């Protein structure tokens, strides 16, 4: 493992909790409010780790293992991305499938934990999460397929660590379309507006938040932290697709990534400020749109050659 890989991975894992803070601050500024500090999530995590846990008498081991599995799979998924713009610490043919598979495993654990509580609210959240996650998959795989066609590879490292100079111009229109699709997927996968509203206050309107309603203490800390890391990973994919980092040195490339992630945070905050959450029955159309966009990208790439 090269030093730049360690540095990039450590930075992303340490700075990930900043991202929700940036989003919140953007929303606050746009709404003319003071808002919580940018570092709020760090404080929340520290507080939750000190606290005890209230565990429902209905639950079994599955409920208690799920947060560790969710966090563990998310962290390992981070090792599959070339965060330093050069190469991922762990890369192999078809690792893109493993990336999606690890995230799915984490989700499976959380959904089962929600059903383990026997609460109808959490069942509802789990059902909606599973529904929208299933509909996200085609768009996600088509985005990766487009990147694969553009770079002639099935591994995330060549897909995202683009070194091509002149080729980039040829693939650029398709990559922009993939970027649009990926940004919509980022919002959907991470439970942000317009698919889900993390700031909502009514259980009936929640998706992700209601699914984890019964977790508390260190378990909730794990879920919140892993959620922030997952958002950072999707942000990193988005930045890698839209900004060719081939010309930068190792440090420059990592700085570009951090700056890019900040822009992603502001962007999500902007979207959340100007849009309302979609009606649940409209969400599938939103997700189908991501698949259609990435289909266009693939057609562009296939017809170009």
């Amino acid at each position, binding site marked *: 493992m090269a030093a730049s890989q360690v540095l990039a991975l450590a930075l992303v894992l340490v700075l990930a909790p900043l991202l929700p803070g940036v989003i919140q601050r953007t929303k606050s500024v746009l709404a003319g409010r003071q808002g919580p500090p940018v570092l709020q999530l760090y404080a929340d995590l520290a507080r939750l780790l*000190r*606290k*005890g*846990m*209230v*565990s*429902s*008498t*209905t639950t*079994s*081991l599955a409920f208690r293992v799920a947060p*560790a599995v969710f966090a*563990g*799979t998310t962290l*390992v998924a981070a090792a599959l991305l070339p965060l330093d713009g050069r190469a991922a610490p*762990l890369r*192999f*043919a*078809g690792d*893109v*499938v*493993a990336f999606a*598979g*690890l995230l*799915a*495993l984490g989700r*499976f654990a959380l*959904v*089962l934990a929600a*059903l*383990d*509580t*026997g609460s*109808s*609210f*959490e*069942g*509802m959240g*789990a*059902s909606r999460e*599973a*529904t929208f*996650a*299933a*509909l*996200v*998959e*085609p*768009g996600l*795989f*088509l985005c*990766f*397929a487009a990147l*694969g*066609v553009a770079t002639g590879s*099935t591994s995330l490292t060549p897909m995202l660590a683009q070194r091509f100079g002149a080729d980039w111009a040829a693939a650029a229109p398709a990559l922009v379309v993939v970027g649009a699709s990926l940004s919509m997927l980022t919002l959907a996968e991470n439970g942000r507006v317009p698919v889900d509203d993390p700031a909502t206050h009514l259980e009936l309107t929640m998706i992700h938040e209601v699914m984890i309603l019964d977790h508390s*203490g260190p378990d909730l800390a*794990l879920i919140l932290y892993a959620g922030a890391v997952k958002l950072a990973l999707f942000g990193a994919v988005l930045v890698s697709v839209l900004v060719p980092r081939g010309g930068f040195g190792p440090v420059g490339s990592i700085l570009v990534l951090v700056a890019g992630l900040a822009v992603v945070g502001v962007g999500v905050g902007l979207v959340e400020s100007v849009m309302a959450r979609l009606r649940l029955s409209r969400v599938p159309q939103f997700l189908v749109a991501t*698949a259609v966009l990435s289909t266009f990208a693939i057609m562009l790439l*296939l017809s170009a050659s």
Partner: protein
Amino acid sequence: MILLFAGVFLLAGSGAAAVWLRRWPRLAERAYLLLAVAGAAGAMWPALRVVGGGAVEPVRLATGVPGGAWVFAIDPLSAWFLLVVLGAGLAALAYGAFYLAAEAEHGSVPLGRLVFSLLLAALVLVVTAQSVVPFLAAWELMALSGYFAVVFDDRQDDTRRAGLVYLVATHAGTLLLFLLFGTWGSHAADLTFAGLAAAAHQLGDARSLVLALALLGFGVKAGFVPLHFWLPEAHAAAPSHVSAIMSGVVIKTGIYGLLRVVTMLQLPPAWWAWTVFLLGAASAVLGVLWALAQHDVKRLLAYHSVENIGIILLGLGVGALGLAYRAPLLSVLGLAGAVLHTLNHALFKSLLFLGAGNVVRATGTRELERLGGLARGMPITWAVFLVGSAAIVGLPPLNGFVSEWLVFQAMFQAGVSRTPAELSVFGTAVLGLVGGLALACFAKVCGVVFLGRARSEAGQAAREVTPGYVIPGIALAVACVGIGVWPALVLAPALRVAAFVAGMPPAAALELARPAVSAGQRIALLAALGVVVSGLLWWLRTLALRRAGTAAAQTWGCGYARPTARMQYSASSFAAPLLAVFGPVTGVREVRHASSYETHAANLVLERGVLPLWRVLRAASDRLRPIQHGRLQLYLLYLVATVSLLLIYLAVWGSP
């Protein structure tokens, strides 16, 4: 080869022993198990040798009969399917030995054992026969013993009906196989598979007919959409160990047939490859959607077999596209994905059916809406079922992930192949969607059956069944995990089988797919990393909790203080949002009341397609009744008339 035949005789003999020794049940049970294990081990040995890269001499019997010698051989393809048959089959047989013993009031236990071991012996013969006559004979034995195994509990109307539908479907398929081999054989010197393969390039226009007949004839057995209509009926009605072998192994003989035809014909045309690919996509999506709509656990698992056959066909389709468009990497990856998924599905699907059998045995119901909270009473069954569920969804680090990863790679590679096959890159979206839907479906099954609170008295009282019920499941779970964390174990053998089907030297295929083979070790590393990181986090949170302590309380009900088990999310309500997205193709009818919500799922193809067609056929055949008088003289007259007509035909148009 001697070992293989000895194995077949021991397998068949185990059933016979179970019948002869029926007066002494304990002795019969031991003899049955012992002989069957010995038989399976005997037949497994040569298969393992061939899978490992060795060779076994073929056997030629009855060389003088018309149609050529009866050849039995173990080539890589046969060896691979022998592993599928014996691996999953032995687990199902051992489970059945215990499961049936408690079913004495529903049917004859010794006969149930006999037909099961005959089924296993027939399966071994089906995948090793290399001539048409013994192949079809074994195929028929498999179909019939399968029928009798399914209708074990023949006092139930449902079971008899399911058995009848299965019998009609399988014989319709066999009829098409007769046509297939008849057409092909008329161009060949003899009816051995080698003879047929040699005649492959003389088929001319009949080639398309042969391929279409193969797709239909073997398709009925494999059970892809829309030929799957018999499958959920039969697999749900059968005893659990029979469901396991039907879903895990018997339907795979259809896949075997298709692979065998591709091997013998070589270079399938592009239209056929595209048809297979599209059928695979349709089966995968519709299969999992229909599964999502079920709340009978065994019907649900049966529909998942339709889905997984779809995934296998996607791999086979990409492989065939690679052959048709001369893109060898595609064919190697696609075919390897298909054969590996065949093995994996056999393992985790039998595992899931055995787990479902435990649930049925412990609670007496297959209805999801009446279960819940079984994880407390049945921890081992729950753990084993969870492994199977994660495997069938295709989550790492389990075996289902490895084979789906190969199929995904084949489709990604298609995108960069610069042949017309590049369009199959859109299959990644299909496979992604199927994975997401399967995740939702198994979250539903696991959550509703094992987690939360019991929804009925039976669920409340459920306790773990005796060790005989759980050991076969544990063995299968170990295999699922083993392949998942150490894919190198199966990748090279699967690639060798793919090379055999594609007709290229094994070394070339391994060289071509070297990135995939070396990725096997990275997957092992990934699995280890995942376990270590998750374990570390678990340890840290336990440390943090040790300081701060844990309190027990009721589940948070948003202020409502008296939640009941009935208020939990049910299987129907969990699946409702997804089913609503896909609309009428799911075949679901909703029943809403003020305080309840139910869904009823229909077998659309059977009820809207096959049965109406059947009624038309029956009305038409009623017209033929008048010639059936039951008078012997009339029948003799028919015979004489037919023979005379044939003689006249021969005299006038026949060859000299």
